């Protein structure tokens, strides 16, 4: 089988991994090829609109396991392929030299056993760094069950390492992938986190010290393959951020590929809307200082699909509004629908020079269509926001697309 054919199979097999970020790592050029830019660069956008930043492939789609939700499971009758380390290095370098990519995102099915697979992956990243002096970005999957020493070695050559949890609760993981358990996934995560902490103090020395996974780790959760609630999903994510210091949690709407497996729901389309709401909630936790229990809890276990979670929060908490633009602190400003982290900081710096008008707010990027119901500023008076009626606002802010789908509007159009 030639390289082109292998690439076709192993790219298709890798496409369900949604992570694409290349941020958070700065690698100066050291005379070899490449550099990593800390902000990250997308080089193209695929037909599904997703960023293409890294050459995202599997080393092989052979697998000894049989996870129900995975296209590469042992019992699927599909074309299989495996790269040699040399082929993969060659493709990476040639794509990089043409400015197609920022680097490599390498994952794999489990061939023979976890140690064997992990050793192959490590050989690829080691050759790239040591033989070809490649300074581009490398994101490597750690293979659960592989020897600690192998994972530790690979960590010295890569920018990011990740282990996918995939199923948001252990009981459902065991149902769909009886050969797996949470421990096998969480254990390498702890290991990476630990090793990162060990290498940290070394980095303060003036001489260049080895870095261990400098861009941190990430994981992915599949949404909609199991009945797990958003509460379950987001609490897990929140724990991963705080306890294992993950940089990113990705959410991937389940796509019904293994149609013959009755343990899986026969979704006609991936739950993209829910996925989107989860990303919004995730942003609230990472950049808006929201705690997870402010977004979902036992009484509201699932996100409102028709309303973004920040607005939903505002409507549940009329007592904190309206917010005074001239006085509110950052934490409070960030809670106002229509104000983002950027504009919140602009407000803080602009109001030192005087009053902030609604015109200026607009210029700063505040979405006044939303924000005006929740703030007071110079001309929007000190009135106690009479427009503030949660039910009324809810109707107003319902996603246009969501409204279109309701039978009522269809009827209106008909008559």
């Amino acid at each position: 089988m030639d390289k082109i054919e292998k690439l076709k199979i192993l790219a298709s097999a890798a496409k369900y991994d949604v992570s694409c970020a290349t941020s958070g790592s700065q690698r100066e050029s050291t005379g070899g090829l490449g550099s990593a830019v800390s902000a990250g660069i997308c080089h193209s956008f695929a037909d599904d609109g997703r960023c293409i930043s890294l050459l995202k492939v599997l080393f092989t789609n052979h697998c000894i396991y049989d996870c129900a939700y995975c296209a590469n499971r042992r019992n699927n009758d599909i074309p299989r392929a495996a790269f040699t380390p040399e082929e993969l290095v060659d493709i990476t370098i040639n794509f990089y030299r043409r400015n197609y990519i920022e680097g490599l995102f390498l994952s794999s099915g489990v061939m023979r056993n976890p140690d064997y697979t992990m050793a192959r992956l490590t050989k690829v990243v080691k050759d790239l760094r040591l033989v070809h002096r490649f300074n581009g970005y490398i994101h490597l999957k750690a293979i659960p069950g592989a020897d600690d020493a192998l994972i530790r070695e690979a960590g010295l050559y890569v920018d990011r390492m990740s282990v996918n949890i995939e199923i948001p609760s252990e009981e459902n993981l065991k149902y769909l992938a009886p050969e797996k358990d949470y421990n096998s996934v969480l254990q390498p995560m702890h290991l990476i986190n630990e090793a990162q902490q060990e290498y940290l103090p070394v980095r303060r020395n003036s001489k260049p010290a080895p870095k261990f996974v400098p861009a941190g780790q990430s994981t992915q959760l599949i949404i909609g393959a199991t009945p797990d609630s958003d509460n379950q999903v987001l609490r897990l994510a929140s724990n991963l951020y705080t306890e294992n210091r993950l940089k990113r949690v990705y959410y991937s709407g389940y796509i019904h590929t293994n149609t013959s497996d009755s343990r899986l729901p026969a979704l006609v389309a991936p739950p993209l809307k829910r996925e989107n709401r989860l990303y919004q909630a995730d942003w609230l936790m990472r950049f808006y200082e929201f705690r997870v229990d402010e977004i979902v809890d036992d009484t509201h276990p699932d996100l409102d699909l028709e309303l973004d979670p920040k607005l939903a929060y505002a409507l549940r908490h009329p007592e904190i509004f309206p917010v005074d633009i001239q006085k509110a602190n950052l934490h409070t400003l960030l809670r106002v629908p229509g104000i983002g982290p950027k504009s919140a900081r602009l407000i803080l710096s602009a109001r030192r020079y005087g009053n902030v008008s609604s015109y200026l707010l607009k210029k700063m990027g505040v979405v006044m269509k939303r924000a005006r119901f929740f703030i007071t500023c110079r001309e929007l008076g000190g009135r106690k926001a009479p427009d503030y009626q949660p039910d009324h606002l809810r109707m107003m802010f319902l996603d246009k697309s969501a409204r279109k789908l309701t039978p009522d509007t269809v009827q209106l159009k008909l008559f």
Partner: protein
Amino acid sequence: MINYQYDGTFPGFLSAVFEIWDRGRFPARIVPPEVAPGLFEETIEVKTADDRAGRVWKGIAKAGGKQLCQRLMHVFLSRESGVEDLMLFILRQLFDNKKNVAGDLSVEEVLRFTQMERKVLREVHRLYMFLRFEQTADGTWFAPVSPKYDVLPMTLNHFESRFSDQSWLIYDTVRKYGYYYDAKVVEEITIDNPAFDKETGSLPLEAQSADEQQWQQMWRSYFKHIAIKERANPRLQRQFMPKRFWKHLTEKR
């Protein structure tokens, strides 16, 4: 109101600034060469003088810092109509009122200045994203570009550090100049009789290295297979990757 008309170059702009303060006359405007002067307005044609421009440049650096110099340069590259007014506003505050207002976003002009700078920097970033090299038969890597603003010079550091061990040529097919890097130094060049396609900048087959087509084919195949069909979203794709870049993109050509 006096119009100081300059030649459209950055030193020309700085020379105009010099003259305004030299003559001590406000109200004044600096206008680009393509603007026709109004019937009853006085218009002075500014001669570009490098020594004067240099003095102004140093003056700005001293009063406002290197960063302000850089920001003015970025905004100038936008070539949007009215940039001269915004720049002059900031310089007037700096020289006459001894205030560097460039950070005060509550001032309308500064906000617009900042927004224009952002547009220019975005174009720089898009070159980082969408530039594509093809390997020529002699081993040089060639990339045609056609950015909205004249930002190619601003990208050189990035490409030099990233592709430091390969010789490359990046060419602006609209402004008809480019930079050649021989794996040691970068120099500006122009090409009189280009062998590449004038519109897309692509190389004819005989000018390409032996395996160039194979790699391009692999990239196109990768591009096609990495997309999830169930999530096709051409609108989003176009939004992130505007059509004007497609003619240079291997995967979209």
